[in-house]
């Protein structure tokens, strides 16, 4: 844990569901990451334009600007921060749409324990 503390990697959570965002924030903070949470895509993109992050945990269905638009916008703005999709969408179409942006992973939230997500985050940020 100290290893992560030292590095203090910044993770941005873009998730409109506050309780879920909170759970992720608590979990990731507890193991030493520097976590920021925004509740919609628009805020996420504007924050990403100002600050750099090591990883983005991105929801897909959100008000104002959804996850797909965020990905498109980041691509347009050449912001190449790694992305893990955390969504409750599971149709092949949705998965495929995100794959073209080179996302690191696609987790269905209800089917995935927090520990699995954390493990993957650690793996990516190693």
């Amino acid at each position: 844990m100290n290893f992560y503390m030292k590095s203090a990697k910044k993770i941005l959570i873009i998730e409109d569901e506050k309780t879920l965002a909170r759970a992720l924030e608590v979990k990731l903070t507890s193991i030493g990451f520097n976590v920021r949470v925004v509740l919609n895509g628009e805020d996420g993109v504007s924050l990403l334009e100002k600050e750099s992050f090591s990883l983005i945990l991105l929801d897909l269905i959100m008000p104002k600007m959804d996850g797909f638009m965020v990905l498109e916008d980041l691509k347009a703005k050449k912001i190449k921060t790694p992305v893990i999709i955390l969504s409750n969408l599971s149709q092949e179409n949705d998965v495929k749409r995100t794959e073209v942006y080179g996302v690191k992973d696609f987790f269905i939230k209800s089917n995935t324990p927090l520990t699995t997500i954390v493990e993957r985050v650690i793996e990516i940020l190693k």
Partner: protein
Amino acid sequence: MKLNNNSTTENIARKLEILAREKESTRKKLAITAKQLAVTAREVALSNKYSRSLIEASLDPLVTISPKGKITDVNEATIKVTGVSRQELISTDFSKYFTEPKKALAGYKKVFKEGSVTDYPLTIRSRTGKLTHVLYNASVYKDDKGKVLGVFAAARDCTQAKKATEQLEVTAKQLAAVAKEKESTRQKLVVTAKQLAVTAREKESTRQKLVITARELKKLHDTLEKKVLKRTRDLEQIRSRNEAILASIGDGLVVVNKEGEISYINKSFEEMLGWKSQEVIGKSMVEVVPREDARGTAVLYKERILTQVLSGKKFVADLTNPFYYIRKDKSRFPASSIMAPVVLNGKIIGAVEVLRDITKEKEIDKAKTEFVSLASHQLRTPLSTVNWYSEMLLTGDVGEVTPDQKKYLEEIYHGNQRMVDLVNTLLDVSRIEMGTFIVESKATNMIKLAQGVIDEHKLQISEKKIKFTHAFNKKIPFIQADPKILRMVIQNLLSNAIKYTPEGGKVEASIILGSDKNILFKVSDTGYGIPTNQQNKIFTKLFRADNVVGKDTEGTGLGLYIAKSIVERSGGKIWFESSENKGTTFYVTLPLKKSKITH
């Protein structure tokens, strides 16, 4: 003695005289008799001579035969016919002069017996070998006391007659042959006559047929004229009917000539695109109605399917890729269209395009997808919350929990997991039913897939102390299938077998090469089984058999429904054998298709 002598002497003289006179009379009588005898002898001799002359003069061979069969006399004719001299003939056997001595012998024996024979046929062989066919007439001759002295036989030369007869026979035969030939000829003639009659009949029949044909032709001609008139009227009707149909169909229709110039549009086309018929007839379809792809980029003239159809590059084009047609007012609508060339005598003389505004279909498709997305999202979000927070509590992220609290939290977590599974299954069902599943077939290793599913169930298997065995034929080929869908089949069947088998039971899975180029996946258990009266409902959506409802509350009644849907869509078959409290075996066959052999 002397005196008396005188008288005695006189007596004696008288007596002597009488005697002399008597002597003279007798002498005279004798003389007469002698004369008479001489006459008679002369007469007899004459008579004999006469008879002899007659005999000798006869042209027929005459012969007398003794009772012993020896020739006693012959005439000249006999000498001539036999070529044997009279002296040689006399005292020889009569029979030796014939070709058939026995028959000759029998002949004269018959005469002795019966007194006579008539027309007895024999053939005389002369010394030189000449044959004379004769008919014998013979009778016996007797002395004055009636004793048979011999046979008198007269032969009649019938050689000429026989020859004549033979000739007659030959002639008769020839005549018969001629007659036969004649008959044959006659019969042939009869046959020919018959044939001629048949030919004549046929001719007549043909003539009659021709007459009938002529009549029919006349009738046909009349009918045709009527038909032509009727057809013309019908065509008018069809034309107006077709126009009505084309005008009324909901799809837009455009007909172009080989230059791609519009020659006809229907009412729906006018309504869809905002152009009036008179505005576009004779103009290029491709220019009048521009096409854009989904991104809004104009489709170039060369890439227009219509152009390709007209140039013969494509024959029938069914455009499933989404595209947009641009209306007269520059607005656009999603469309699909089917195009076909109009071919006359092997040459493309134009094309027909039928187009459809698929705005509604697109909306429905979108609504379907959105429903599933919405359902997924709305149902899963609260489940995720429960999941994650109970997980955090259980892992002690916010402080240690008591054993009891932990136990309750586990119940919450477990219950929530079941809800998650149910939602996932329901989503699968809706996706299968709505056809929003994207099936990506690829060469799939069925064994690897099954092994993965088994690994997932290891915990349950050991918890229930189930004796699990599997037999996978490592050499089975890859199959063309979508692995994520196929996995659902294996998962459903295997989890059912484990779920519906009591502790300590047996579950066996096998994958082998089926008999007719397919793969057979088999899962058998020693579980509760399916009640016979409910076996026909087992693949029905949401159906659960009575005997398991009480034992296991976690089933959804969707697993087998999903499995069956998937298997059947993949061109395979699914069936089972089951008896209650003994166990169940499920069978799945999947076609191999163009798969590769594994190494």
